[in-house]
């Protein structure tokens, strides 16, 4: 009996040691960090422009994309590794044609998704700067102290740097990194999911605004079995439309029907009802256009009897020629109604895309209907599952 008790204690201690060593080994890595916002760079550029203007010289407009590329291209990589046990972050930078450099700092844990560093910096006081000809540099008679605060948003891979100087707080820089960290609900408990479809070969896709409006992080699409982040390009809360861009080249996309929708016209709805809970396969339903008006005489919408369920939102409603007729948006409660569902007319979607200067294609003429195989192929390649946390 005594021996078994001893064994139990030893086993418990061993388990705790193993558990502890696992915990100690845990690290979070941010890889290939790139600057995505550089307000300081823009301010300096504008100050230089003011000087050029005073001198009567031609000013050079600030080009954010080019400026960020120039800064980011200087580095082969910038990586950060957070050791949660020691609360030390190691930053490794490799400039092109230069030696790799690294430094370490202590961080604090702000909350379950955010780490922070408060860095006190003593720097030359600009008002006391004097040029030293021999050393070819500025020298300062006095210094002043500023405070930089870094926030690391773990699941998003974001590094924000703010400078506190006097009563001012300014955003210095935002970097975006590839993070290996995700919050527990990142894997399954998505805040929102829906459907979308490509409208051109540049990776632009349309979905409903309500599919992306509550996202805490960037929306993602599942494309060729990979999860890819998408940038929000434009949205219209009234129409309930959003257009996003993913850095992918779709094999196909949907063209807009150039013909007015007609009652009794046959339509097919594609999408991912109930997200991937049902299955990860694209699903179709079919029906007819029941009315050319939506709920409450909404002339931006049309009514169909093809089934639309949660998760279908943002998916395409097409005609038998494979052209977009509408975007699935909502349905009335299934408890008291049957087959009353709504889509946003393709003409409204085109208006929305036009005002936001986004390319799309429309069919010039309808020639003959697609076969089922071709329709399936078109929709499989142009419809995407979109979700976010």
């Amino acid at each position, binding site marked *: 009996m005594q021996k078994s008790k001893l064994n139990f204690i030893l086993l418990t201690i061993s388990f705790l040691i193993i558990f502890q060593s696992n915990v100690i080994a845990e690290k979070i890595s941010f890889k290939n960090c790139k600057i995505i916002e550089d307000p300081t760079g823009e301010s300096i550029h504008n100050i230089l422009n003011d000087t050029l203007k005073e001198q009567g010289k031609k000013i050079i407009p600030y080009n954010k994309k080019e400026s960020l590329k120039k800064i980011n291209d200087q580095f082969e990589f910038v990586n950060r590794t957070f050791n949660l046990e020691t609360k030390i972050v190691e930053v490794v930078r490799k400039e092109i044609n230069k030696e790799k450099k690294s430094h370490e700092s202590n961080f604090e844990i702000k909350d379950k998704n955010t780490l922070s560093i408060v860095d006190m910096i003593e720097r030359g006081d600009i008002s006391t700067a004097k040029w030293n000809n021999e050393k070819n540099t500025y020298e300062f008679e006095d210094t002043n102290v500023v405070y930089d605060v870094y926030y690391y948003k773990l699941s998003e891979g974001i590094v924000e740097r703010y400078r506190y100087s006097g009563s*001012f707080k300014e955003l210095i820089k935002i970097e975006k990194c590839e993070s290996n960290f995700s919050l527990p609900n990142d894997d399954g408990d998505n805040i929102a999911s829906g459907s979308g479809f490509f409208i051109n070969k540049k990776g632009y896709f349309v979905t409903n605004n309500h599919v992306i409006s509550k996202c805490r992080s960037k929306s993602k699409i599942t494309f060729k079995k990979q999860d890819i982040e998408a940038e929000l390009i434009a949205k219209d809360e009234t129409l309930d439309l959003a257009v996003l861009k993913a850095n992918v080249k779709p094999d196909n996309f949907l063209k807009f029907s150039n013909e007015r929708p007609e009652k009794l016209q046959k339509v097919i709805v594609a999408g991912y009802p109930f997200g991937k809970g049902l299955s990860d396969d694209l699903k179709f339903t079919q029906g007819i256009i029941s009315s050319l008006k939506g709920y409450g005489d909404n002339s931006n919408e049309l009514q169909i009897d093809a089934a639309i369920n949660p998760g279908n939102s943002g998916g395409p409603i097409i005609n038998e020629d494979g052209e977009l007729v509408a975007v699935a948006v909502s349905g009335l409660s299934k408890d008291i109604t049957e087959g009353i569902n709504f889509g946003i007319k393709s003409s409204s979607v085109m208006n929305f895309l036009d005002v936001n200067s986004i390319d799309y294609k429309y069919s010039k003429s309808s020639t003959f209907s697609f076969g089922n195989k071709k329709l399936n192929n078109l929709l499989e390649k142009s419809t995407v599952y979109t979700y976010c946390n």
Partner: protein
Amino acid sequence: MKKLLVILIISLFSNNISLADIKLSCEMTNWNENESLGEEMGEIKYTNLQPSSFSAIIEITSPGKVIARLIGSSDTGNMLSPFVGTIDDSRVLMNNKISKLKERGTDFRLDLISGRFQMNSYIGDYKYWWLQKTGICRKVN
């Protein structure tokens, strides 16, 4: 499993203190000077002021750690800023350094229960403050 362990560590280190910013509206009511810079606290010259208003924003950078900015008004002129320090359930203790990290600078103490604050400014390594400003703050929603 690994993700759960990371979350566990983070949860262990971070507690549930609310991390929202604290905004304060303050009034400075006293300006006190210590006339001696010797080893002992000298005679203090107390001056009552017309209440001079300023604002403060205290941001919690991690549980128990803060950075604060004081925003002066026409009453006070520019205020020293920023202050970094600690917070607990009863007080905020912070410090500001103007030109050198090694200098003692100015301490800001705020009693979170009474709202009374003290700003004590030091010269070099002298033990006692040479200038003290006091007053009261109230939280603003």
